[in-house]
């Protein structure tokens, strides 16, 4: 089914849920104010449901907008649904408070990737038909398949179909978990180069916290980064404080991060936080056999332990005890 067909089915579903009282709010996307952007919208009046759309630019993670205790319906792609799985597991949400309108996802298009593909074209409008984008604004319209300009997180997505779903819309897509080629490629670099890459990424950080605030799993009511007593991490942009903030945030998300990439997409300066989060996800998978967001019943790996966990990193000078 194409985007236009899905858009109208989403709108019909939203209007029905609102008028039947099954949801107080429907969280979805509407047309953005600039080309190549869809924007989150919260619909409470069935008459407004027609604003809801679905296209290749619906890239925000909408689980961020779920509020405990508010009966909500949410248009969920794979990554949104994975976040909901974790939020329910953490009892941030009650499953029965959320109506998941599941939309299989072929991956979202990245405006930066489009700009790299067509340098010099300032896109003024875009059409989408059957996975093909036509971009206007240059001397001639140009076309590109969505699959060639995906966000990095979408290229690496392990679960594109909604993991949990109450109202399925659209045809399921074929899953293809590519594993962690990005992590392996980075790990293959010499340590100096890795450090230099990390420092270069950190130097772009403004400490605006868009990454944190866009993250569906950053649900702490007060963040360590905002605490002044104790002050866990100094404010300002000293490179070591910036790094400490990002390492700590990544650690807080270890085993919980659903790899949706919302943090990377939110960053106004394009800091690649996947270097942190994907490594942790790969290690959690390897060490604890767990992947966040995929299994409603699996325990959270950092709220669990086993006597048999690997401890090859434990220093043991010379002699074994006992």
């Amino acid at each position, binding site marked *: 089914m194409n985007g236009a067909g899905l858009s109208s089915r989403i709108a019909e579903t939203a209007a029905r849920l609102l008028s039947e009282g099954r949801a107080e709010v429907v969280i979805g996307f509407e047309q953005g104010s600039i080309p190549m952007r869809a924007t989150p919208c919260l619909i409470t009046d069935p008459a407004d449901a027609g604003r809801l759309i679905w296209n290749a630019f619906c890239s925000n993670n909408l689980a961020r907008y779920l509020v405990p205790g508010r009966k909500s319906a949410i248009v969920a792609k794979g990554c949104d649904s994975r976040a909901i799985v974790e939020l329910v597991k953490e009892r941030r949400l009650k499953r029965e408070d959320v109506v998941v309108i599941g939309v299989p996802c072929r991956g979202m298009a990245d405006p930066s990737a489009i700009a790299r593909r067509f340098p010099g074209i300032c896109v003024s409008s875009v059409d989408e038909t059957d996975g093909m984008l036509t971009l206007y604004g240059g001397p001639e319209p140009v076309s590109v398949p969505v699959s060639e300009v995906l966000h990095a997180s979408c290229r690496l997505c392990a679960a594109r179909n909604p993991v949990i779903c109450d109202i399925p819309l659209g045809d399921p897509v074929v899953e293809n978990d590519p594993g962690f080629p990005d992590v392996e490629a980075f790990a293959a670099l010499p*340590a100096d180069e890795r450090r230099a890459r990390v420092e270069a990424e950190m130097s772009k950080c403004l400490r605006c916290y868009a990454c944190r605030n866009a993250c569906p799993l950053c649900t702490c009511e007060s963040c360590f980064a905002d605490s002044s007593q104790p002050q866990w991490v100094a404010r300002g942009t000293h490179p070591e404080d910036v790094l400490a903030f990002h390492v700590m945030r990544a*650690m807080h998300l270890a085993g919980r991060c659903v790899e949706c990439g919302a943090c990377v997409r939110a960053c106004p300066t394009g800091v690649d936080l996947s270097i*942190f989060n994907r490594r942790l996800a790969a290690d959690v998978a390897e*060490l604890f056999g767990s992947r966040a967001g995929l299994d409603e019943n699996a325990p959270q790996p950092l709220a669990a332990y086993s006597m048999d*966990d690997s401890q090859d990193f434990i220093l043991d000078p010379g002699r074994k005890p006992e």
Partner: protein
Amino acid sequence: MTDTDKNAAWEPRIVAFLCNWCSYAGADSAGVGRMQYPASVRVIRVPCAGRINPFFILSAFRRGADGVLVSGCHPGDCHYISGNLGARRKFALLGRLLGHLGLEEGRLHFTWVSASEGVRFAEVIETVTAKVRELGPARRSAGGGR
């Protein structure tokens, strides 16, 4: 003077987070037994390895530590039953992450030392000090930025 000579003259600063119930007592046994080990460690006593927030470790490096040692009870011996087992998962991830980022490699060490293991405690400090000494003073990023 070679780099190795220079490092031999330099005394690393190592922050050691020690569990109150085992490793801290292990350090005591090393003292009572009059064992010699390098005076490079600054000990911070914590109630359990499980109490150690990864941020403690990052803060130590941020404040100028050349090395950090975390030591708790052997698996199965935790005073709180499983604090060290939960901590082990956290430490495994943190160590790998920092290594991945090219940070503090060879400067962050985890171990288990029981209350009776004074000898092991002295050996751990010897080993960690030697490793950190070999790396030289930690490189710190300058302040400023854009």
